[in-house]
């Protein structure tokens, strides 16, 4: 009971942030609905109802796009036609597909932030991971059974991402170079490495004019969770969930995790307690990079089946936002990634059905983050008790997520 209440306390700000952002999104939909706005003088009631209807339609489409149409799923399951079932459940599986790399990268960001390292380099680490996995898959093609190639390519992707994360960790520990600068710069380097690698005839799709790799699916594929035509959801998602459990275990149950968190909160006190600050930095960045690299591996081997220049697509940056939304808790990262996955995926249908541009979703996501970053704003709007702290009251525990400080 106590644990539940604490959980509710922790979730209050993120959940209310999402609701508030959706409400603001609704206001924007209304304000940009010129058909209804033009009627406001002649038929105010109709205009208001129409505007509300517009919002309902847009968010309804988003929900359907993200989770599917329940009646349709029911009918499809009753008739049992595989093609119908596939079409009916496709939206929700696509939401999970979209959230898979976000979970990996979000976990990576959470681990590094917990250790006080602002890993902005998720995109770069993901690219390197994707490249590593692609090279391994193509290089090993035909030399071993596909099952082994799968393991080897994901491992190669993970290792490549880990290496790309280790570099800024090492630079910070040894020279004090700030990881924000180095990871951002390594993002550019990784993009060019990818571009260069895709010029190689060994990797590049034969006869292609754009820099994309050969299609990897014939060589190796990640087993699907549901074998229906057009369903892309695969075991990568399960691995992502396992990684969330692992990260949680690492952070809260192991001595290494204890060191990471201690150094992240207070480097000086960690040093006084005999911990190696540099070691924690390098470890956190390596793990963070490895997780992003794993995302890259599963993207090219499973979801997409091909490596292209825009493989990262800003996932590494969205991961920062959702990790903060999650309060840097692995379980929260999974939920936040599902939310972001649902928004991006559902937004597509919203765009088609109600003509509202997908950009509205970026607006909503940005608002979510802004509200999470400003808990006082949300507390004020929803009139929930804050943590105004009088002098020396031991009982008050701030509910805001612990944000890391730069060492």
């Amino acid at each position, binding site marked *: 009971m106590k644990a539940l209440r604490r959980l509710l306390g922790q979730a209050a700000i993120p959940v209310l942030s999402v609701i508030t952002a959706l409400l603001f999104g609704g206001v924007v939909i209304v304000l940009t609905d010129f058909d209804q706005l033009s009627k406001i003088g002649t038929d105010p009631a109709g205009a208001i109802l129409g505007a509300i209807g517009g919002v309902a339609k847009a968010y309804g489409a988003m929900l359907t796009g993200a989770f599917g149409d329940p009646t349709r799923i029911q009918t499809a399951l009753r008739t049992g036609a595989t093609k119908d079932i596939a079409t009916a459940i496709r939206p929700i599986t696509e939401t999970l597909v979209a959230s898979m790399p976000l979970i990996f990268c979000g976990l990576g960001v959470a681990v590094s932030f917990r250790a006080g390292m602002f890993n902005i380099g998720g995109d770069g680490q993901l690219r390197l991971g994707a490249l590593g996995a692609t090279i391994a898959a193509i290089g090993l093609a035909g030399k071993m059974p596909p099952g082994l190639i799968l393991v080897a390519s994901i491992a190669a992707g993970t290792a490549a991402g880990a290496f790309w994360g280790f570099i800024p960790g090492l630079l910070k520990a040894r020279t004090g170079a700030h990881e924000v600068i180095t990871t951002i710069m390594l993002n550019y380097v990784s993009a060019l490495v990818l571009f260069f690698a895709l010029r190689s005839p060994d990797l590049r799709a034969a006869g292609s004019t754009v820099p994309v790799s050969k299609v990897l699916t014939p060589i190796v594929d990640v087993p699907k969770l549901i074998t229906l035509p057009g369903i892309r959801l695969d075991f990568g998602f399960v691995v992502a969930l396992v990684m969330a459990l692992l990260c949680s275990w690492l952070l809260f*149950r192991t001595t290494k995790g204890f060191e990471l968190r*201690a150094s992240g909160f207070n480097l000086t006190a960690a040093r006084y307690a005999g911990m190696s600050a540099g070691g924690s930095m390098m470890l956190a960045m390596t793990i963070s990079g490895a997780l992003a690299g794993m995302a890259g591996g599963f993207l090219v081997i499973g979801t997409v089946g091909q490596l292209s220049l825009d493989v990262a697509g800003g996932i590494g940056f969205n991961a920062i936002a959702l990790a903060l939304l999650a309060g840097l808790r692995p379980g929260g990262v999974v939920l936040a990634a599902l939310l972001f996955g649902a928004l991006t995926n559902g937004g597509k249908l919203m765009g088609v059905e109600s003509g509202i541009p997908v950009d509205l979703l970026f607006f909503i996501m940005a608002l979510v983050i802004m509200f999470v970053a400003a808990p006082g704003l949300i507390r004020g709007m929803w009139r929930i008790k804050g943590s105004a702290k009088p002098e020396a009251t031991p009982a008050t525990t701030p509910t805001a997520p612990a944000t890391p400080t730069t060492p």
Partner: protein
Amino acid sequence: MRLELRDITKRFPGVLANDKISISADRGKVLGMLGENGAGKTTLMNILSGLYKPDSGQIFIDGEERVFGDPVAAIKAGVGMVHQHFMLVPVFTVVEAVALGAETVTDFLGTFNRAEARKRIVELSEQYKLDVDPDAKIETLPVGVRQRVEILKALYRQSDILVLDEPSAVLTPYETEELYSIIRSLAAAGTTVIFITHKLNEVLEVADDIVVLRRGRVAGSADPKTATRQELANLMVGRDVELIVPKGPAKPGDVILHMEALHVRDDRLEMAVKGVDLDVRAGEIVAIAGVQGNGQTELVEAITGLRPVDSGTITIGGTHTEKASPRHVSDLGVAHIPEDRGRDGLINPMSVAENYILDSYHKAPYSKRGILDLKAVRARAAQGVKDFDIRTPSIDTMAGSLSGGNQQKVVVAREFSVPVQLVVAAQPTRGLDVGSIEYIHRRIVEQRDAGAAILIVSTELDEVLAVGDRIAVMFDGRIVGILSGDDATYENLGLLMGGASFGGGVAA
């Protein structure tokens, strides 16, 4: 002006911070407000300065009721605050910092009338013997002078009621003396001064009246001419406290900590410890007295492995530790109570339990092959909380939300949770109230009697005199004299701390 607060009550969620507090101070008098941390002193002063609104109660100035909606109203009514933490822009000159927010202007463009401001500041500075250079940059000024700039700021705004919140916390003994004389001259000129502190000597020294707060209420008042330290301490804590923890004579055994010709550099690579020779034996407490910044910090960091040794020898229990890591030193059985518990000793956002294992999390019984045994952690932490009487809602409470005394108890409990042969304690009771000081001293004496060697570094003469079996005075990176606890007095220590070489001192 005469100030009167009547039945002030202020409630925060879960706490009654001020419960019908009534105090008054006459024009030209110094009211000493004494109380432990959390007694409600700061809340009361924040009400007086307009930061908080009282739930009930009235404020009268010269018999007229005033209601302060915000700090600006309080300043207009003549109430000036000097906070514990200074609010000065470091790159400003004294004139700029003082005039900031109360500038007079020469024209409609809002040009700052610097000459006039400077003239007034010089006048005020002379009138009250503040001795502040109006053109010096704030960042170049020592802490004591910065505090005088804060006082100037209040005077510049024509405050007739001046509130000083724990003003001596950051001052050296000499600067504190200077502060007293400034306060006296302010009072003589008609300013009403409210002096908030938890230090007994200070109210006895400077106040005309003493009011003691305890748990949000007025516990009593006292006349400084007749009150004793003991009476005030008992009033403050609400029970009989021991200002000087009773301890038997030291029974010095083998040398545990040995330092010879020790040289250590500070962060700017200047030599901060310039050839220290000192032995600390098992079963004795050696206290190092000295004004902050004479190499004590660097000395402690060198002993505990946090700072490289430039040259010289350190051995702990016979083992050379000049190049040892902090963990290596700690593994030798060295307990370290660091100077700044918030920065060095605790991780505020982590729980009491996690802070309890902060330097032994990697060892049995907490760690088994790299995995934390949370059961063992919780059990041991709960035991530590019990043994050291740490007042915390639970072991899962964030360490940072505890009171200072309880935070320090967490540090001490952790450091004493394993057998130790040497205790290095830097400012172990800084900022703590009388009750906590008594407790921490008692624990340290216990360790001594159990056979540990104790090195205490403190800038508080009271502390040094209370616990030191031998007292070494550090000045400019050197030990300038060592006195036995019985021979040491405020006077001879004070002289040594100021750099006078002292005939009676025994070379190490």
